[in-house]
C-alpha cells in the first residue's frame, strides 16, 4: 500500500523523516518495501500490509497504527471542506452530519438485497453531478498510490477507498433500468461486460448488482461498462456496501480478476463503515465541486453487526510473552488502537472494533499488545529441556552416511527439482504411472519425477556443455508414481574418466563394472549384499543392465544409460553414461536388525588353487561360480574370477575363464590331499554341467 506521507499527516502529526517512520513501523508489523521521494520533502512509503490486516489498507488505518506507535492521537476524516483547490482542511472537526443529506423523499433510490448472507449491508445515495477532471491535489494523491485518475466522480470513489478502505462504486443512474438496485446471485447464462472491456460469463453463486433487468456490476469486484459514469452523466448512484469476504474471494478467483476493491472485500472490510464512507464521498463531491448529493443515504442493513467482546487475562499475556507487562502498557496500546477495555477480575473485557476482522480470540489481543510493546523489548530465555531427544530420523542419518560414502568415491551431490517434463519421465515409468501436476508452472515441470535420473542426466548435460568431461553426480531424494506413491531413492550418474589422464599413463573411461562397484558399495553401506542379475529397462542399453536383488526384492538397478535418452538430454550419444538407482525405502526394510556380531579370525593358513576353463561365452560367470560353490561347500572359502579371455587361441563362441579358489579349514592346516578331492569334484561338476574344458 503506497501512501503519501503528507496524506498520512492529515490524520496524525507524526514527526521525523519518511525513513524514520518506515523504520518505526517495520518493527510494528508493517514492513516497508520502499520509499520514493515525491517533491517538497514529501515521500511515498510503500507499506506491506499482511493478509490479516485489511483495516490497514487505507490511509486512516495506517494513521491509526502510526498514532499508536508514536503515542499520538489520530484525527478522523472531515466531511466539510472550505475550498476545492487544496486538500481537506486538517483542522476541520470530525463531524459527519451533512446538510445535503436530508430525510428521504421521492428521489430515494430503491435497493433490494436478495442475498443478505452474501451482502449484509448495501448503502446507496443519489447525487447530481457535472463530470470533469478532479482537482490536481486529488489526482496527485491517487497517482502516488498507483491509482490512475479518471474523472472527478470515479476519483472521489477511489479516494475514499484509499483513505478509509471502503471500496465504492458510482453508477450512471440513467443507465440503470428501472432506476433500482437488486443485489442477487447471477443467473445461469448471464453475462456482463466489465469496466475493463471484458465480456464475462457469470456463473451461479456469483453475487451481482443488478438493475431491474440485468447485472450491472460484479459485487465487490468490478462495475459494468454499460452503467459506467461518462462525460454526459448527470446523476449518479453511489454504492457503499459490505460484501461477504468469501463470496468476493470466490468470484474474484473464478473470474481471474483482482481489483483494489476485491482485495479489500475478500480480506474483510468494516461492516460499520459503508455509511461513513458514503458521507465522506458526498462531502468530497461537494468540496471538489463535482456534484451534490440528493435525498438520503438509503442504508439496507437487515442484520446489524455488533462488535465482539473478548476476555484478556493478565496471566495469559505473561504466559505467552514470557514477561509481566504493566497494566498501563496493555491499556494504552489497546485503547489507542480503538479497543474498548473494561476491567475484569483476571484482566479485561475487551470490545473489538468491527474493522478488526483479525481479532477473534484472546491470543489476537496478546499479539496486538506484543506488537506495540515491541518484540525487542521482551526478555530472552532458553526453553527448558524436559525429555531426552530421540535424535535423528534414520533416513536423515542414512542420507548423511551415503553422502560421506559417495563423496569419498568422487561423486558430488546434486539437488534437482521434484518435477520434470512428461517426455523426460516417460522412459522411466510404466505408461500412465507418472503423476501429473494439475496446475504446472510449465511443460518442463509437468509431472512428478518417477526417477531422480532424468534430473541428474540434465545436470550431467549442463556440465558437459561447460566443457566438464569427467562427471560423477548423485542425488538423494523422493520419486513418485501413481501406483507406488512417494518413495526415497539414491541415484548416481558417471561419465568420462574412471581413472583420470595422467603423465604416467593408465587413463581409462568408466565402464559397467565401475558403476557396479559403486552400486555394491552403496548396498554395503546399507547393510545389504545383493545378487546381480541381467534385466531389461527401456532407459538402459540392452545387455548392459542389471538388477540388484535381495531375497526376492529388487533394491536397485545399474547399467549404461540408453544413448538415445542421453542424447535427448543433451549428452553426446557417443559418450557412455553409467547410472545406478537404489530404492532406499525397500533397502531399509531389508536391513537385518541388530548390531553386527564379529566372527573369530582364521587360525590356519589357506590354500589357493587356480582353475582355467573353456566354456560357452553365453554362460554367465555367476552360474559357474554357483556350481563351484555348491560342489565344494565345506572347505571352499571363496571363489573369484581373475581372468576372462577371448581371442587368439580360443575357439569361436568360447571364453576362457580363470578362477582363484581359496580353501581353508577352521580346525587345521589343509594339505594338497585335502584339497584334491574338492578340486576333482569341482572340475567334474563344471565338465558335467557346463561342458567346461580345463585348459
Amino acid at each position: 500500500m503506497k501512501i503519501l506521507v503528507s496524506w498520512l499527516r492529515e490524520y496524525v502529526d507524526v514527526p521525523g523523516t519518511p525513513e524514520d517512520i518506515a523504520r518505526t513501523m517495520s518493527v510494528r508489523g508493517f514492513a516497508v518495501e520502499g520509499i520514493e521521494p515525491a517533491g517538497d520533502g514529501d515521500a511515498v512509503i510503500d507499506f506491506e500490509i499482511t493478509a490479516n490486516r485489511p483495516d490497514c489498507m487505507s490511509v486512516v488505518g495506517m494513521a491509526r497504527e502510526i498514532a499508536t506507535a508514536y503515542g499520538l492521537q489520530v484525527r478522523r476524516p472531515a466531511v466539510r471542506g472550505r475550498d476545492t483547490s487544496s486538500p481537506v482542511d486538517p483542522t476541520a472537526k470530525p463531524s459527519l452530519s451533512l446538510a445535503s443529506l436530508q430525510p428521504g423523499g421521492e428521489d430515494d433510490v430503491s435497493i433490494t438485497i436478495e442475498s443478505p448472507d452474501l451482502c449484509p449491508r448495501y448503502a446507496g445515495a443519489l447525487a447530481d453531478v457535472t463530470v470533469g477532471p478532479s482537482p490536481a491535489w486529488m489526482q496527485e494523491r491517487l497517482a502516488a498510490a498507483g491509482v490512475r485518475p479518471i474523472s472527478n466522480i470515479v476519483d472521489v470513489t477511489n479516494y475514499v477507498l484509499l483513505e478509509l478502505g471502503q471500496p465504492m462504486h458510482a453508477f450512471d443512474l440513467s443507465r440503470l433500468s428501472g432506476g433500482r438496485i437488486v443485489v442477487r446471485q447471477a443467473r445461469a447464462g448471464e453475462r456482463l461486460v466489465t469496466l475493463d472491456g471484458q465480456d464475462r460469463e457469470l456463473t451461479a453463486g456469483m453475487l451481482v448488482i443488478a438493475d431491474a433487468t440485468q447485472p450491472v456490476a460484479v459485487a465487490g469486484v468490478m462495475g459494468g461498462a454499460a452503467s459506467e459514469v461518462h462525460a454526459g452523466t448527470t446523476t449518479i448512484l453511489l454504492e457503499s456496501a459490505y460484501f461477504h469476504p468469501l463470496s468476493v474471494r470466490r468470484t474474484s478467483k473464478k473470474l481471474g480478476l483482482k481489483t483494489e476493491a476485491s482485495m479489500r472485500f475478500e480480506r474483510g472490510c468494516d461492516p460499520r463503515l459503508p455509511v461513513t464512507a458514503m458521507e465522506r464521498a458526498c462531502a468530497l463531491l461537494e468540496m471538489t465541486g463535482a456534484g451534490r448529493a440528493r435525498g438520503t443515504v438509503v442504508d439496507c442493513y437487515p442484520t446489524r453487526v455488533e462488535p465482539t467482546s473478548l476476555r484478556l487475562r493478565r496471566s495469559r499475556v505473561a504466559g505467552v510473552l514470557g514477561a509481566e507487562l504493566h497494566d498501563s502498557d496493555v491499556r494504552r496500546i489497546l485503547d489507542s488502537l480503538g479497543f474498548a477495555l473494561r476491567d475484569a477480575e483476571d484482566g479485561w473485557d475487551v470490545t473489538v472494533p468491527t474493522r478488526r476482522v483479525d481479532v477473534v480470540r484472546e491470543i489476537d489481543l496478546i499479539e496486538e499488545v506484543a506488537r506495540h510493546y515491541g518484540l525487542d523489548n521482551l526478555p530472552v530465555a532458553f526453553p527448558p529441556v524436559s525429555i531426552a531427544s530421540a535424535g535423528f530420523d534414520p533416513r536423515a542419518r542414512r542420507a548423511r552416511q551415503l553422502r560421506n560414502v559417495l563423496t569419498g568415491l568422487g561423486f558430488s551431490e546434486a539437488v534437482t527439482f521434484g518435477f520434470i517434463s512428461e517426455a523426460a519421465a516417460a522412459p522411466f515409468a510404466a505408461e500412465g504411472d507418472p503423476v501429473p501436476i494439475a496446475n504446472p508452472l510449465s511443460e518442463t515441470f509437468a509431472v512428478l519425477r518417477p526417477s531422480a535420473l532424468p534430473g541428474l542426466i540434465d545436470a550431467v548435460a549442463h556440465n558437459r556443455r561447460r566443457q566438464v568431461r569427467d562427471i560423477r553426480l548423485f542425488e538423494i531424494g523422493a520419486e513418485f508414481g501413481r501406483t507406488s506413491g512417494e518413495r526415497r531413492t539414491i541415484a548416481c550418474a558417471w561419465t568420462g574418466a574412471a581413472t583420470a589422464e595422467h603423465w604416467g599413463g593408465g587413463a581409462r573411461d568408466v565402464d559397467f563394472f565401475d558403476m557396479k562397484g559403486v552400486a555394491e558399495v552403496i548396498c554395503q553401506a546399507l547393510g545389504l549384499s545383493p545378487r546381480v542379475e541381467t534385466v531389461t529397462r527401456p532407459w538402459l542399453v540392452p545387455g548392459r543392465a542389471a538388477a540388484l536383488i535381495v531375497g526376492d526384492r529388487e533394491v536397485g538397478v545399474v547399467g549404461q544409460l540408453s544413448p538415445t535418452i542421453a542424447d535427448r538430454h543433451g549428452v553426446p550419444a557417443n559418450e557412455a553414461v553409467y547410472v545406478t538407482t537404489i530404492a532406499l525405502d525397500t533397502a531399509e526394510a531389508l536391513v537385518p536388525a541388530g548390531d553386527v556380531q564379529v566372527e573369530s579370525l582364521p587360525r590356519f593358513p589357506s590354500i589357493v588353487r587356480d582353475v582355467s576353463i573353456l566354456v560357452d561365452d553365453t554362460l554367465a560367470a555367476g552360474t559357474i561360480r554357483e556350481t563351484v560353490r555348491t560342489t565344494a561347500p565345506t572347505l571352499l572359502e571363496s571363489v573369484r574370477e581373475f581372468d576372462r579371455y577371448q581371442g587368439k587361441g580360443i575357439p569361436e563362441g568360447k571364453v576362457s575363464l580363470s578362477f582363484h579358489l581359496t580353501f581353508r579349514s577352521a580346525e587345521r592346516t589343509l594339505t594338497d590331499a585335502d584339497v584334491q578331492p574338492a578340486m576333482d569334484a569341482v572340475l567334474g561338476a563344471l565338465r558335467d554341467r557346463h561342458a567346461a574344458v580345463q585348459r
Partner: protein
Amino acid sequence: MPESTLDRSAVDALRAQFDRRLADASTDQSLKAVTDEFLSRKSGAVTALMKALGGLPPESRREFGALINELKTSIETQLADKRAALEQSRPPAGAVDVTLPARSMPVGRVHPLMRVRQQVEDIFARMGYEILEGPEVEDDFHNFEALNMPPDHPARDMQDTLYLGEPIIGGTWGAHRAHTPAARRADGLASGIPAAQVRAATLLRTHTSAMQIRYMKTFRPPVRIIVPGRVYRRDNLDLSHTPMFQQIEGLVVGPGITLAHLKGTFEALLTEIFGDVRIRLRPSFFPYTEPSAEIDISCGNCKGSGCPTCKHTGWIEILGSGMVHPAVFEAVGYDPEEVTGFAFGVGIERLAMLKYGVDDIRLFYENDLRFLSQFPI
C-alpha cells in the same frame, strides 16, 4: 722433446690448464675426457712430461721429477674429489621427480544446501531436538486446514500451491521417538506410528509444517522437533525464487513455553551460523502462529550502516516464526490452556546464499561442478 719446454713455467701452465678443464667438466663423460687428457698412459699431458724427464740432466731430473709427481698427485686427487662430488649429486636409484602431478583422487562434494542443512540439524540436535523427515506429497488437512488455513482462507494465496492431477499414496514418515520404548509407553502407542494418519496426497507440501501436525497428532507434549526437507510453491525461476526449495521448520511445545524462549533459541542458532550478529524480531503474519514474527539479523556486509545486500535497512530477513496458534493445538487435540509453543521456518537457500555469498538461487539447482567444487571436502 726440446729441453726448453721442460721448465717450471711449463708445469705451471699445465696445472692452470688442468684447473680450467676440471672446472668445465660437470659430467662423467667430460671428467673421463679430462682424466685421459692429462693422465692417459699413451697420450696424457702429464705422462708426456714424465717421459720428457729422461732427457734432463740428473740434477734437474730430480727437481723436475718431484714437481711433476706433485702435479700428478694433485690432479689425481682433484679428479677423485670431483668424481665423488658428481656421484653425490646423482639421484638415488629409483628416485622420482616429486614435482610431477599426482594421480588425481577424485573426491566429491556435499551439496552446499545439504551442508547448511546438516549444520542447522546439528545445532538443533545439540539443543535436544528430534530431527524428522516427512512426505513431500501431502493432503489438504495436514498442509493447510490443521494449520488454521481453512478452504478459501486468503493466506493460502501467500503460498500458491501445486496440486496433483489425482491423489496418490503419500510418503511415509518416521519419528524416532516412536521407536523408543519409554516414549511409546508415555504416548500410549502400541508400536510405531498409527497408520490411520495415512490419507491420499493431493498436493505438494508448501512447507514442512505438515509434519508437525502428524507429530502432534501422534505424540503428547512436550515436543521439540525440526523437520528439514523439500517444499514446493508455484513460483517461477528467477534470481531469488525456485519452484522447489529446502526448508527447515521447527516446533517446541510444552507447559510454559514463551516468546522469550523463541528469542533465546534464535540468538543461539543464528550467532552460531553467522558469527557475531544481532537479531531483531519484527511482527508479521502467519495463520498458524500468533503472535508471528520475522527474525532479522544485522547485515554482516555493512555492519548495519546500510548497503544493497540489506536494501539499506541494516537488517536481513532470515526466517519466520511465532507462538503456535491455539487453533493449531485444537486441531491436533492439545489443550492450548495447558501448553504453549513456538514454531519457525527457515529457508535453507536463504541461509546458504548469505553464508557463501551466492547471489543467484538458481546456482543451487544447476549442479555445475565448477560451482560445487568450490565448497570444501
